[in-house]
Every structure is written in C-alpha cells, then in structure tokens.
C-alpha cells in the first residue's frame, strides 16, 4: 500500500498526512469509507477524492453524481508519488492533515501553501482549522466530522464553489466546548467557558482606542504565532498595555513532552514581568493572548492553565482572547472567572 504521507498529483497539489504511521491508514480508510456512505454529492465527490488522495487505491470509490464529476475530471487520476516535499513543485494548495497529540485531540488544518510561497513565507499560511476530541482508533463520529469538513473543502477547492457556512462553524468552534449532535461532552472535561454576563474591563478597554489598537497590532504582528501581553493599571487608575514575548517555543524546545504545543497554538508569558511592572507601580488587571485561525473563545487549554483544578491562579484577573484569522484580527472577548460555575464567563460586548 502506498504511504499516504507524501502524495502529490502532477499539478503539485499535495496532500500531506503528518505523524501517521502505517496503522494510521486504517483511520484514513475509515475517513473515505464514511464519506462514501453519505448520499450527498459533495460527500460522494469527497469520498472519491479521498480514496485517491489518501490511499491512492480507490477506497471509497462511489458513483459520482454528474455535478461533482465535472469538477473532479479536472484532477489527473494518476497520482505521482514522490519522496518528499522538497521534490514537489510549488504547491497550488496544501491540505495538511496534522495529527498532533494534545491529549486525545487531533488537529486538521488546511493551509494555503501557494499564498505562503507567493509571499515568501517559509511556512504556508493556515487558512482553516478543525480540532476536536477523539480517541484511538477514530470513532464513526470522528470520521463523520472529518468527512463533513473534507467535503466542504473539496466543494470549495476542487469544485470551485464558495465554502459552505459549515467551514466557518467548524473553524471557529471551541474544540472542547460541550458537543451537540456529533460528540457528547466528556464527563471528565475541564470546566467550560460559559456565557454568564459580567461587566468590566472590556468596556473600559474599548473606551481607549489606542489601547485596543496596541493589543490588536501585537496580535496581528505575531501571526501565525500567538501573541500575549499584560493589561496593567497605574497608580492613577489608568489602563496600559504591555506586549510581552511568547516563550512557548522555548519551553517546547526544552521539554516537548510537558509542552507539546508550539507558539502556533499556545502561549507562555514571562511571569517575572508582572513583578517588574509592580516595581513600577503597575498592577495586573488582565492578560491578553491571541488565537491564530481560531475563534475568540476561552479554550479548554486556557481554562486548564488559568484555573487548574478549578482554582484560578490569578484571582481577579481578566483574560482577553483575540481571534486572528489569516493575519487579520476578527474578534476579541474578555473572560472572567466565575466562582459560582467554576468556569470562565464572557463579558458582554459593549
């Protein structure tokens, strides 16, 4: 069986499956097979493409409806198997199905290598991400989730149709928020962010456009790495913003087991800077960080880090999360610890 990790077609269109050993092919088969059981044209097209892209052996082959067939005919049926990305032509598009172990979660990221190549970037720009909890091996629900996402992608990219709204929904959903129809909430999940209204810091921050601009500029400048910084108050009561370096990559390099994430999906702040600010008469009132190609939610990881065991490490401090999509700031939400629920509540937008 072909190794699905390095598959390219003659146009340089590439599908890279990273971090999947041969055992992972079973999951890919399941992916294509589940697509094939969906009666929709899009899923049928996705199954056809997945069968050829992922395993190159016709798994999931189904009769393709005419509307989908025309689009798929544009793809050459003879895949060219290369040894690695270095031998590929500049890719037109790059689907990166990254399986990174964050506990039991899996990332499926879609990148646009062509855009990155044009802009001279070393790494492709990530344009969409779906992350969800899964076990091993993949359950039917997981496969359906992947399949639905892939169907959207293929509809948009292969068939040239505008992305379905579902892409945005998948893209921005908190991967660890309580599940609805596809995946029930885990009983042992960390306390979740709630929507209990809280007054406070966001309204005050937005009254000072220069401060908002400073936060957003830092978040955009650091993309595709997460930005982080401090919201401080001086003795006179005035707010100020202090961007700080994201040390996550340094910790990841030192101990990738304890710190499995890079700055692409995580941040770690130099906490000593809080003491230095205090020496200057500045007190900590908030902490901001960005989510790259993800929504402005307070993630399960944010909850675990801010209040491990349900006890906030910085009581009274607010948490500003900024969503940066494709390098552009799209949204920001302020979260406060809610003692009653033991979770974090979003402050209403002013």
């Amino acid at each position, binding site marked *: 069986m072909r190794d699905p990790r390095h598959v390219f077609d003659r146009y340089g269109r590439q599908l890279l499956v990273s971090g999947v050993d041969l055992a992972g092919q079973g999951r890919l088969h399941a992916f294509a097979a589940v697509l094939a059981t969906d009666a929709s044209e899009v899923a049928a097209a996705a199954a056809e493409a997945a069968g050829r892209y992922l395993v190159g052996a016709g798994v999931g082959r189904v009769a393709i409806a005419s509307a989908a067939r025309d689009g798929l005919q544009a793809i050459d049926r003879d895949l060219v198997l290369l040894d690695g990305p270095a031998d590929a032509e500049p890719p037109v598009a790059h689907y990166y199905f990254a399986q990174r172990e964050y506990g039991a979660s899996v990332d499926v990221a879609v990148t646009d290598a062509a855009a990155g190549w044009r802009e001279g970037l070393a790494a492709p720009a990530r344009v969409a991400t779906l992350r969800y909890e899964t076990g091993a091996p993949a359950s039917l629900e997981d496969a359906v989730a992947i399949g639905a996402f892939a169907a959207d992608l293929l509809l948009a990219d292969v068939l040239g149709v505008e992305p379905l709204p579902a892409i945005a929904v998948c893209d921005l959903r908190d991967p660890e928020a309580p599940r609805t129809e596809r995946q029930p909430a885990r009983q042992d999940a960390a306390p979740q962010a709630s929507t209990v209204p809280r007054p406070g810091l966001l309204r005050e921050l937005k009254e000072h456009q220069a401060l908002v601009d400073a936060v957003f500029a830092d978040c955009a400048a650091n993309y595709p790495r997460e930005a982080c910084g401090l919201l401080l108050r001086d003795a006179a009561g005035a707010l100020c913003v202090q961007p700080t370096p994201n040390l996550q990559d340094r910790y990841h390099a030192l101990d990738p087991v304890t*710190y499995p994430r890079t700055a692409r999906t995580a941040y*770690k702040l130099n*906490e000593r800077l809080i003491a230095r600010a205090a020496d200057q008469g500045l007190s900590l009132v908030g902490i901001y960080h960005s989510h790259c190609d993800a929504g402005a939610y307070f993630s399960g990881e944010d909850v675990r880090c801010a209040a491990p065991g349900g006890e906030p490490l910085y*009581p009274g401090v607010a948490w500003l999360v900024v969503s940066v999509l494709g390098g552009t700031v799209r949204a920001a939400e302020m979260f406060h610890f809610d003692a009653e629920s033991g979770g974090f509540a979003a402050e209403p937008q002013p």
Partner: protein
Amino acid sequence: MPISVKIPTPLRKFTANKDTVEVQGATVGAALRDLDTRCPGLWAKVCDDDGKVRRFINVYAGDDDIRFLQGLETPVADGSDISIIPAIAGGC
C-alpha cells in the same frame, strides 16, 4: 543567611498569609523541602509525584526559571531569592 522564598497569593493559605518565607538549603530542591517542613503541603503544590515542578507552576532562582538551569538541583547561594510563580499560559 537564609534564602527567601516568595509565595504567590493562591499558596499563602499554607504560609499563614505570608508572602515570603525564609528557608535553608544549598539547592532549590533542598530549599523547597525545607519550606515544606515549615509550611506543610507546599511541596505537593509545587512538585508532582515524580518530584518534577508542576506544569502550571514556575520556580525562579533569581530571574531564571529553574527549568532552564539545573531544575531542582540548581544551587542557591545564601541570601538569594526563590520565587514560586503560577504560570500564565494557554492556547487555542
């Protein structure tokens, strides 16, 4: 001369609300063990069962996270400071 250990707010319930505790020890680990004898329960809050500093806690010797030094074996001089600081981290 003792070593000063700075205690973060969430852990001051172990120190009778004191923000600094003076301890003895030639290494960070020894100092934290001594801290635990004076304020029982603190060691378990800072280190896990494997004797490793917990992910959500940072221990600084001076200005440096001991993870980038010699960990709990990092030597400390008399009169120096150790800071226990909750981590600020997260991710999407």
